[in-house]
């Protein structure tokens, strides 16, 4: 791998990406990042503006923890404060410059980034523009499991904060799954063969060593037992636990609380039958069924 070949994990939310990113990032030649949200903006100024909107404070925490860890080898409250100051002093930097700064800091290892791209083609194109030779892993999960997980998390937040409307949320879930996967397929279809690969999260969780080895082979990395064995321990990542009070998260909270890899096939779910989160008991739409089957789901 050359120095400019990070691995980006692309998927909708609730697709096992936290544990998968941290696990892959434990390969001795890789470095797994929490959610740093650099792929959705062009400059650090814009990145700072992200967290000004309500409910978006979490979007800063991942990058703050990364800078603290890289500069101070620790994620204390002081280190996080210094990381914020360091970033503010460079608020004119482009995100491209910061991405390459991070890549240089962890070299010769390669970055593994799962930051959400919000299902926007321009964000995917931005990542590609920053690292034209990057690898892209399209990670999938059954739409029913994704939807159930998404609804559980979002409806809990909605109950707390009074938004969004539960019916609107329910209608959004299926659309969200379809749109993001379609965006990813549209983007990866135009990449040279081999630059993007697709993987069912369920397959990976069932036999992780088998697929970690294939991922390493695809990325031209070591495939020895020690390297693959390291990938079985996402909990060894410096970002696999609750952080200091001024940057506690930066990743899926469930993962931060229980970061171990839970090996085993997730429970079987079917495309047939009403969506649990639909008050009218609607089935999946034909477009969802078509896409889900194309991705290997039944």
């Amino acid at each position, binding site marked *: 791998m050359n120095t400019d070949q990070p691995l980006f994990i692309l998927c909708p939310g609730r697709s096992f990406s936290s544990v998968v990113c941290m696990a892959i990032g434990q390969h001795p030649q890789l470095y797994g990042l929490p959610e740093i949200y650099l792929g959705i903006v062009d400059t650090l100024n814009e990145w700072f503006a992200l967290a000004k909107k309500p409910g978006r404070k979490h979007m800063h925490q991942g990058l703050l923890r990364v800078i603290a860890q890289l500069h101070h080898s620790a994620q204390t409250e002081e280190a996080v404060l210094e990381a914020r100051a360091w970033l503010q002093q460079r608020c004119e930097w482009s995100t491209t410059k910061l991405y390459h700064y991070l890549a240089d800091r962890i070299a010769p290892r390669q970055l593994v980034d799962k930051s959400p791209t919000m299902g926007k083609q321009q964000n995917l194109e931005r990542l590609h523009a920053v690292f034209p030779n990057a690898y892209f892993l399209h990670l999938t999960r059954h739409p029913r499991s994704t939807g159930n997980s998404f609804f559980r998390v979002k409806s809990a937040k909605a109950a707390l904060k009074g938004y969004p409307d539960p019916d609107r949320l329910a209608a959004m879930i299926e659309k969200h799954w379809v749109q993001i996967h379609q965006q990813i397929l549209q983007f990866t279809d135009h990449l040279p063969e081999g630059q993007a*690969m697709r993987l069912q999260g369920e*397959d990976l969780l069932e036999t992780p060593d088998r697929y970690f080895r*294939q991922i390493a082979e*695809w990325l031209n990395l070591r495939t020895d037992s020690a390297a693959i064995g390291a990938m079985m321990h996402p909990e060894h990542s410096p970002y696999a636990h609750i952080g200091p009070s001024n940057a506690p998260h930066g990743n899926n909270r469930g993962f931060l609380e229980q970061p171990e890899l839970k090996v085993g096939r997730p429970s079987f779910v079917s495309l047939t039958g009403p969506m649990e989160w639909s008050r009218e008991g609607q089935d999946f739409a034909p477009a969802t069924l078509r896409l889900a*089957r194309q991705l*290997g789901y*039944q």
Partner: protein
Amino acid sequence: MTFSSNIHFRAIPLGFLATPGEHRIQNAVFFKKRLYVGVISHPVDATTTSIARLLRYYPGAERWEAVYEAVVEKSSVLSATRPFPLELGWRALSIMPIDGGTEALCATLLSLRNAQLIYSTDGEHFEALPAVDVKQPRAAPFGLLHPFQSWLFATPVGAMSDGLYMRENGHASLYVTRNPRTGDWQPANAPGFGNPGNEVVHGLIDFHGWLYAAVGNPFAGFQLWRTQAVGPPPFTWELALDTGARRYTLNPSVASMAIFQDALYLGTGVPETELLSDEVAGAEIIRIFPDNRWELVMGKPRFSPIGLQVPLSANSPGFDDSQNTLVAALASSNDVLYAAVVQRSQREITGFQIRQTVDGENWQQLHSPAFLNPCAYSLRVLLAMPNFLLAGGVWKFEATTPDPEPSLWCFS
């Protein structure tokens, strides 16, 4: 790696077909040193009858004659009342043992009401087998034919080709008999091999003592089943490959199969006799070994339960062209494997090519001026012999086409 080469394909003119219309060469086989070709002709003039012909060629004398002719119903007439993807005409042309081992030329002739199996032991005189009751409404085991372990396997026509009957009857079915003349056909498998998504058996081939059935499944990707046909039917079948070799619905069917250098090669794509779904992708070639291990020869790189699959040919789907959606035919001789690759979209066929390989991995495209004939519409049939390759397909002529010269192509 892909190479290309200019090859001289000799045209074997087919004077029978030089009339305005569409002429589909559907299958070809050698029997008693003569070449037999099944053709259906749909004249431009809608009032003129379509004809299915069985033509015979004398290689030495370079002469053709029609040995069997039948009027067939026209799909264009039927489509006025309901969708009818079945292309009426010849389904299969095979050499089979009949009556305790006598070799016969067997042909299955499709039409809406009366699927027929005709056979001849001398290539001159044909007899039709009587209709049989296999407990499926209006379906008879007169589709694809394949002899294996003293059994004759067949697909029922309804399940094989007629989109409506596929759904009504449900599921890919196979039947067997010791002797088709007795009419004693029995089910050879559980309906759909136990999977309601398995709609069609597209191909049968024997390899390493097993009979393999390629089964189309538009909901999950093709499946490949195999049996040794031990004991009484229905037989025990083993799943050799499924989920379209992990490409799922983008590999809904296997359109062609051939054995080459101790591996079974599968060419993917939806056969021309069936309607295409919305998702059409570049075709792939996959090879499978007797232990069910498989390798991607040409296609999309992917992860799989048996390891990372990277195309051995270094060619992406459709030999690097996603418009090449169908490997319509695969044929092997002693030393060479050939593939007929067709550009098929929902609306039309826009081109075709022939490729060859001597090692299964490095493919060479064969170019010929003969392929540039604007009336040569598609490629369907490859017949590989040790010293030559025969290729045939679909020809289309308008009434205004000057000097139409439909032909088979021969490369020796």
